[in-house]
């Protein structure tokens, strides 16, 4: 029967504000095969190490992605700090943790909104993004930027966040928590919403491990692994449980993300109460020499920053393996056999950040 057709999905496509391209092989509305192409926003920024010195690379690293900009800046600094054996002041570690978790919150809320948009629930999308603005306000107050912060540096933080501001944050976070209640309830309990999420893109724990997935995508399939438990920054001092879900489908992933927002709220509260006073940066002397790979938990999962340097102003190699990159093989797998109407949902399920994927 001659009813197989190939549809170019993306790079310009409204449910994918980012230019990923998929060749969807369709049979009616069924997707029988999907081939991704991810080269559209490749910039080649890893090669910038030849042109920017290791300090300037922080600005580049931050702009690997605008959503978890903080994490990328941090990850890069962490790797260099390891190579150079720099002890970061405790207060800086706590500030980093707080900002990191705020990033996670804003990223997950953003994701919830986009997901709502993907299944056509416009008011839910609007509501999520309304709440997110409050977090951006906090960012702006603390760092002066809404999405790109320019606040970490090798050896600590460029600016301190005063304690009064931190306690204001606590209040805002309470508000956010209240606002989120109905949003999370709609996502997790609404029958109509569940009908779009449950049973879509099922991957068993074995499959996600074999496909090398990470982040909420992994935990949504019941695997308990969260790189934060490695204890970088101040995570060692903070109590939190890894959120997992045994649903193994897009609903599970949604659940994990929704719960991680609440978890971040709790982490921020703990960190703000525990934060010590003191300096936020140490002096950095000399040039890095050696190699190191930092693994951190970005909102979308584990990101690896591999830095190799040979004692010069310019490092030899920076390689960033981002979570989306790791999840793309899983995406292609779940797309096979899904409905066309599920494609946006499945693409969003990995929370794609093509910017960092292609760098």
């Amino acid at each position, binding site marked *: 029967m001659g009813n197989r057709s190939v549809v170019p999905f993306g790079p310009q496509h409204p449910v994918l504000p980012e230019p990923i391209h998929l060749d969807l092989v369709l049979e009616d509305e069924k997707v029988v095969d999907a081939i991704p192409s991810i080269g559209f926003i490749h910039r080649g920024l890893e090669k910038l190490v030849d042109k920017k010195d290791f300090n*300037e690379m922080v600005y580049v690293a931050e702009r690997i992605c605008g959503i978890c900009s903080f994490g990328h800046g941090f990850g890069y600094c962490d790797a260099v700090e390891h190579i150079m054996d720099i002890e970061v002041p405790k207060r800086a570690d706590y500030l980093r943790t707080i900002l990191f978790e705020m990033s996670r919150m804003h990223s997950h809320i953003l994701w919830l909104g986009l997901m709502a948009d993907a299944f056509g629930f416009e*008011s839910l999308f609007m509501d999520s993004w309304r709440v997110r603005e409050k977090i951006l306000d906090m960012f*702006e107050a603390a760092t002066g*930027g809404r999405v*790109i912060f320019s606040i970490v540096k090798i050896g600590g933080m460029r600016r301190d966040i005063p304690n009064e501001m931190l306690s204001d944050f606590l209040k805002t976070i309470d508000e956010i928590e209240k606002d989120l209640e*109905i949003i999370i309830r709609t996502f997790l309990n609404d029958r109509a919403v569940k009908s779009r999420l449950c049973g879509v893109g099922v991957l068993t724990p074995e499959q996600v491990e074999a496909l090398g997935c990470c982040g909420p995508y992994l935990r949504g399939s019941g695997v308990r692994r969260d790189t934060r438990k490695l204890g970088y920054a101040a995570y060692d001092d903070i109590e939190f449980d890894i959120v997992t879900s045994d649903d193994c489908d897009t609903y599970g992933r949604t659940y994990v993300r929704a719960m991680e927002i609440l978890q971040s709220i709790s982490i921020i509260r703990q960190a703000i109460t525990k934060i010590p006073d003191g300096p936020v940066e140490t002096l950095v002397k000399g040039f890095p020499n050696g190699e190191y790979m930092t693994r951190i938990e970005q909102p979308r999962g584990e990101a690896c920053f591999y830095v190799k340097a040979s004692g010069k102003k310019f490092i030899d190699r920076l390689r960033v393996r981002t979570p989306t990159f790791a999840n793309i093989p899983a995406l292609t797998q779940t797309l096979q056999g899904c409905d066309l109407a599920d494609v946006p949902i499945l693409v969003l399920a990995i929370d794609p950040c093509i910017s960092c994927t292609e760098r």
Partner: protein
Amino acid sequence: MSALNYTGRALKNLFSKPATTKYPFEPADFKERTRGHVENDMDKCILCGLCQMKCPTGAITVDKKEQTWTIRPFSCIQCRCCVDGCPKKSLSMGRKYQEPGEEKISKTFDLSDSQKEALAAQAKAAAERAAAAKAAMEAKKKAEAEAAAKASAE
């Protein structure tokens, strides 16, 4: 499992005040730390060129000859690097962002007259010092040469 969870919020929103700002009909409110644009206090700048060197996008040009400091706001990524690195604290971050425009303008600032004078004075002083040093050096050389000549003569 429940249905129609969102009905209440939708209806409530309908009858409550929207969350929308009044911008552009009212001015936007920026936070104290907002990184909007780079300002240079031309009273303080010494045209050392450090900012030009540090800027990751090359948005700043310092022309020592013409005594101007130029920024291309359509290249500046508000990283605040120049501000932090300015030895004279002449740079600062303004809270208002650069206005959008039909052209990628660049803004050139002349050194303020007082600063020009100060710089000139400094330069003069430096030149004098240099001249003095030169003179001293030459005198020394001369002395040495003389001493050498003396020695060879002996």
